[in-house]
């Protein structure tokens, strides 16, 4: 009898040698005459356990991890093919605390199936949403998405339904769905995990968006740093075309929808939607002035829905299970779930999809297990490079758009980067300015010049030069950037800077430099 094994092909697993493990298991199985089949799945998101090898025994998957090639002979000796016990055994994968305590809606299939297996996708609820949408009117689809309370997962949290409604109601023979897969934020990898682990889900969401708005073409802008995502999504598009889920007659709806990939080229600002559209038109990624908004004049001047990967990949489950089901998760005006990404100096890093309302502490300490170094926690940056640094005293805040905003922080794309007590928050504030200076599109002065001057001022603070005056200068620059920047690159760079100043003032209180230092 053939035993089925699952070993991820996700980038994170590859970076830990998953391919070597596959090769070693194949060789060892050959040697011992074991009849095995290896399926390359996405990752379950328990990244500290990667490469995670799962063995299917009577339909139940037993996990072993982290496995390296040198562990393989020992695993065979321990009869892992029949779930034998071994030091690396984690038991039945789906009974692992880390997974049991999640609410996986968007990531329901990620790590479970072969990302390019249409049948496996279908068996686990794939296409249910699209088939339902194919029988609905555009207005009905839009209202289902609006009712669900789904807000944009790219950072700004704008209600997805409202955007779709605008595009749906505009006349025009050419409209577009543009998926933002630029995922430039440090500490985030959910878009990547989804594209590599369940690409059909994203493409199904885009097709539903097409039916809802009358758009016949979709584009996915994937950052060039993600070649594995580009390859997997490309193969998924081809498979869907062949199966009739994309093309002239999407899922029997009688409507056409096609999807194309555009590669980014290493510019963080191209995650900003209008800069992304410029880039997709083959131009410099300079931010456009608004109005007009992309919904009205987007790609090539046509009505365009721009949504993040996670926003679009959440649409199928909303259509399949209904708006009420999705809306029953979450708190306040943050409905549903968010795939949080726990990163940086943390023991158990990875992806945790939870309903909004989970506390920062639960994520960092409960799921994350505290710092990787074992040193005391100092700070966490939430929501990417433009997000705030929070301190120990803020850890009990619930993850909710409005609660964090009221505290001067933001949920953003759900990334959490943990720092231990060796972190120098003045250095992190300096980096926020430096990053803005490097990545600014250059269109407006507060951002272009402010970031450079901000970095210089923090340098002086760190060197103990006129500390008080330079802190005041940093505050002034932050004010100018917040008020006078055209987009959130310049507008939000002050968020990490100010939060560092506010919550970690001791790190800016540098001893005056010796007279000779200047």
């Amino acid at each position: 009898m053939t035993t089925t094994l699952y070993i991820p092909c996700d980038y994170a697993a590859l970076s830990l040698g998953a391919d070597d493990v596959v090769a070693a298991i194949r060789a060892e199985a050959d040697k011992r005459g074991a009849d095995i089949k290896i399926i390359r799945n996405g990752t379950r998101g328990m990244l500290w356990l990667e490469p995670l090898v799962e063995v299917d025994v009577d339909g139940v998957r037993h996990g072993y991890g982290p496995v390296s090639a040198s562990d393989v002979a020992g695993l065979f000796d321990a009869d892992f093919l029949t779930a034998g016990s071994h030091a690396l055994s984690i038991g039945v994968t789906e009974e692992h605390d880390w997974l049991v305590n999640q609410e996986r809606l968007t990531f329901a299939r990620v790590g479970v199936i072969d990302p390019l297996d249409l049948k496996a996708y279908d068996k686990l609820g794939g296409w249910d949403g699209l088939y339902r949408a194919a029988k609905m009117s555009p207005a009905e689809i839009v209202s289902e998405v609006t009712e669900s309370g789904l807000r944009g997962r790219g950072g700004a949290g704008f209600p997805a339904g409202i955007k779709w409604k605008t595009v749906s109601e505009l006349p025009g023979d050419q409209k577009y769905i543009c998926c933002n897969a630029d995922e430039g934020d440090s500490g985030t990898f959910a878009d990547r995990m989804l594209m590599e682990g369940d690409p059909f889900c994203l493409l199904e969401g885009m097709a539903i968006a097409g039916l809802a708005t009358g758009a016949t073409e979709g584009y996915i802008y994937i950052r060039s740093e993600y070649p594995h995502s580009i390859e997997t999504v490309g193969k998924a598009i081809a498979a869907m075309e062949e199966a009739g889920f994309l093309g002239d007659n999407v899922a029997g709806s009688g409507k056409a929808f096609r999807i194309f990939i555009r590669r980014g080229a290493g510019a963080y600002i191209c995650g900003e939607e209008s800069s992304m559209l410029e880039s997709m038109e083959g131009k410099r990624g300079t931010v456009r002035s608004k109005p007009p908004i992309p919904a009205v004049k987007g790609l090539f001047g046509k009505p365009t829905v721009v949504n993040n990967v996670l926003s679009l990949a959440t649409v199928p489950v909303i259509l399949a299970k209904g708006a009420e089901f999705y809306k029953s998760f979450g708190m306040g005006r943050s409905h549903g779930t968010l795939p949080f990404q726990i990163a940086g100096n943390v023991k158990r890093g990875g992806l945790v999809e939870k309903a909004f309302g989970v506390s920062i502490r639960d994520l960092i300490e409960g799921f994350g297990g505290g710092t990787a170094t074992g040193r005391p926690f100092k700070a966490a940056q939430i929501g990417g490079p433009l997000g705030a640094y929070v301190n120990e005293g803020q850890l009990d805040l619930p993850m909710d758009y409005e609660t964090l905003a009221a505290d001067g922080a933001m949920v953003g794309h759900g990334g959490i980067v943990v720092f231990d007590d060796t972190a120098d928050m003045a250095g992190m504030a300096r980096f926020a300015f430096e990053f803005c200076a490097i990545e600014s599109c250059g269109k407006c002065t507060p951002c272009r010049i402010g970031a450079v001057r901000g970095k210089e001022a923090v340098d002086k603070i760190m060197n103990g030069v006129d500390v008080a005056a330079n802190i005041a200068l940093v505050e002034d620059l932050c004010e100018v950037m917040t008020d006078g920047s055209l987009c959130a690159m310049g507008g939000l760079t002050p968020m990490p800077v100010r939060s560092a100043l506010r919550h970690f003032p001791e790190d800016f209180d540098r001893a005056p430099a010796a007279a000779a230092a200047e």
Partner: protein
Amino acid sequence: MMNEERASASEIEGAVETVCGRHGNTPSELIEILHDLQDMLGYVPESALPVLAKKLNLSRAEVHGVVSFYHDFRHNPAGRVTVKICSAEACQSMGALPLIEEFCRRNGVTMGETKGDGSLTVEPVYCLGNCALSPAAEVNGRPMARVDAAKLDAAVKEALV
């Protein structure tokens, strides 16, 4: 890919012809075209720009503007081994900056540049999407997690043979 070698004028012209043709000489696909060109030649030579402009019916200034805006496009050939070590926040939280500084010093190379003997290029990168396994790096495109000096050295050595 012809690492560390400069392409000849005729090679450049041929490559531009091929990649523009692949994209139907469509100016809106300029970034895809530049990626393909860099995949073929290893860099985007200055002398390719007027040829591109002509093929795509764009001005030279437009093409130059695009090439210079994006960090991905190299103006010179890379070394035999290209190392990218992430310098963004999550990797910083695990000591990426001192690691990078030390790696560059030990190998006698400056960030963003190629070593004189053409063996090694170190390129900056802000986030590889592997932030739970920091510091993250790539050596000739091979993903690596939780890197330290020894792991980087071993990977570079392996890539050089």
